[in-house]
């Protein structure tokens, strides 16, 4: 416990941590400020206009459905080719709501999902960098050797560092998510439109936020493991950057050019996106045939499995290695 306290104090005293948190707040500040600047509270004119656009949309949907059904009655085969998704593909007219067409207003219910996914990505990025530097600096400076003279049990030492780090990341991510969502709600409430936010909506948003927090924690744990294995902050960051450049970007282009479908299952990003954003559909043919899916569950399992494997390797290696 003493060890965890010391590690929390070490993490929070680091200038790098401070800079990263300031960076995080700056990104947040900019996003919030631009949102605020581009949003106005809809007046009655805006509502009239939105209501009108919604009505037009409804009419066109009803028209589309009618056309479609007529085509099917006439020539089923030709219609199947023309309306591949069926007659309900364009959406249900009853779902069309005027707030979808509020031009200048920030509508919380509409936008927060995308914003929360963005939050998950950047929380994970900052967590990764902070974690890599936290342990990497210790490994390369020899600070860890000093500490081992005090607490020679290597597994519990590394465990305490990991616990301190992930604990701080979970706590910070949670608080920051509350601040973030709260700030956007406030923007919508004061100079935008909150929209239809029922219990189901909040439940879904809560689950999404938790997955974002889980992802940032996993990112911190992976960075911790990589920096422990590689013994340097820069090495851990290099591995991550290298992976994304060479594999996620480079190999994707090669697959694309070679027409080798499906390639989605070979990329970590597919699983990350499935885990946070929900089931990811991909196709095994260029014509969109043979649709397959990476489920949220399998995405989550890949994230958890990767983190566990990296941590296991880091602990096993650190327990045995010579520290000079």
């Amino acid at each position, binding site marked *: 416990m003493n060890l965890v306290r010391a590690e929390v104090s070490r993490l929070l005293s680091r200038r790098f941590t401070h800079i990263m948190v300031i960076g995080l707040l700056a990104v947040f500040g900019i996003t919030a400020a631009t949102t605020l600047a581009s949003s106005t509270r809809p007046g009655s004119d805006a509502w009239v206009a939105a209501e009108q656009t919604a009505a037009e949309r409804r009419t066109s949907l009803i028209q589309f459905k009618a056309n479609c059904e007529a085509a099917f009655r006439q020539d089923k085969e030709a219609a199947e080719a023309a309306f591949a998704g069926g007659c309900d593909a364009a959406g249900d007219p009853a779902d069309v709501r005027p707030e979808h067409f509020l031009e200048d207003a920030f509508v919380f219910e509409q936008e927060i999902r995308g914003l929360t996914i963005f939050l998950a990505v950047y929380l994970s990025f900052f967590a990764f960098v902070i974690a890599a530097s936290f342990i990497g*600096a210790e490994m390369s400076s020899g600070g860890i050797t000093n500490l081992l*003279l005090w607490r*020679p049990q290597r597994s519990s030492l590394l465990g305490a560092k990991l616990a301190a780090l992930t604990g701080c990341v979970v706590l910070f991510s949670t608080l920051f998510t509350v601040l973030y969502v709260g700030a956007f709600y406030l923007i919508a409430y004061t100079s935008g439109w909150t929209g239809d936010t029922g219990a189901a909506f909040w439940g879904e948003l809560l689950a999404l936020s938790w997955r974002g927090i889980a992802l940032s924690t996993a990112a911190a744990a992976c960075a911790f493991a990589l920096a422990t294995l590689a013994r340097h902050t820069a090495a851990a960051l290099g591995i991550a950057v290298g992976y994304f450049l060479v594999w996620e970007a480079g190999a994707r282009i090669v697959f694309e050019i070679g027409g080798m479908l499906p390639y989605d299952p070979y990329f970590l990003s597919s699983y990350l996106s499935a885990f946070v954003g929900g089931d990811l559909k991909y196709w095994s043919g260029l014509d969109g045939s043979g649709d397959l899916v990476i489920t949220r569950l399998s995405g989550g399992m890949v994230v958890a499995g990767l983190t566990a494997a990296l941590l296991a390797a880091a602990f096993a290696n650190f327990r045995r290695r010579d520290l000079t």
Partner: protein
Amino acid sequence: MTAVIEISGLCKTFHSLWREEKTALDGFDMVVEKGQVHGFLGPNGSGKTTTLRTLLGLLRPDEGVMRILDTPSADFGDVAHRVGAIVESPAFFTPFSGRKTLQLLATAGGLPKGRVDEALTAVGLRDRANEPVKVYSLGMRQRLAVASALLKRPELLILDEPANGLDPSGIHAMRTLMSDLAAQGVTVLLSSHLLSEIEQVCDSVTIIDRGRRVAHGPVSVVLAGHDTGEHLVRVADTEQAARLLRAAGATVRIADGALFVGGVSGPAAISETLGQAGLWLTELTPLTPDLESVFLDLTGTRPVPDAPPQVAVPTRRRPPADNVIDLDVRSEEQA
């Protein structure tokens, strides 16, 4: 007397994919007894730091048995709170201040906060404690390292070249600190290249060369083992004095205008022989060996003209070298 550190047959070879392997320790033995200030000497690259690292659980030995404070090295964790140590120039996370560095260690070890200031004062860093380690000089970092070892109020203090970079006053303070600690019953194991310091503060020494012990025992005994019984003599007429002394059965070398006389019963015999012949001594000094000459002889590192001695390449030497001399009278008495 009880042994605080016992090492026997310690072997450590460093393996690397890219470099050839290096045998840093090749069957090394060491015993440090309770309450001693024990000097640990050896040329560069002879394996001192490797020994201390292995003892403290930072390196995994290939072979050998180690006990520290009556505990097998595998359970070092149980006694770590009683052992204060610095190994080589310790590295700190330099953006933190000296005080913060010690506070983190004190928190990790569950020690009261007051110890931090006590340790900082003991090493003379009190007034600079709030500056980042980044701006510390070499000697200040070394002082901080010693403070980190003192923080635990250890029973056993292991210091690897603590005087590295210290100014004369720092070295003096270090010497006083050692004697004070020894007086309080703390056992100190001290590796150093400052042989005159070692001679002043240590009760006994272990000398290591290429991963093996080449001498050990109380300082006086190690020195006595190398005492040739020679005397340096200066007189006006060197030639005649040499003739007279040889006639009296002594062995005489002449160098630098002085006589080196061996094989006599004592200084009185020399002055008597020469005085009776009317030759009056201008100098008569018994040549007692100092630690430096013993060290240079034992480790084969005595400089020769035009050939700077080179740091040895660590390789495994089997079977055991036969130049190991056991000067530890105590262990002989016990045997």
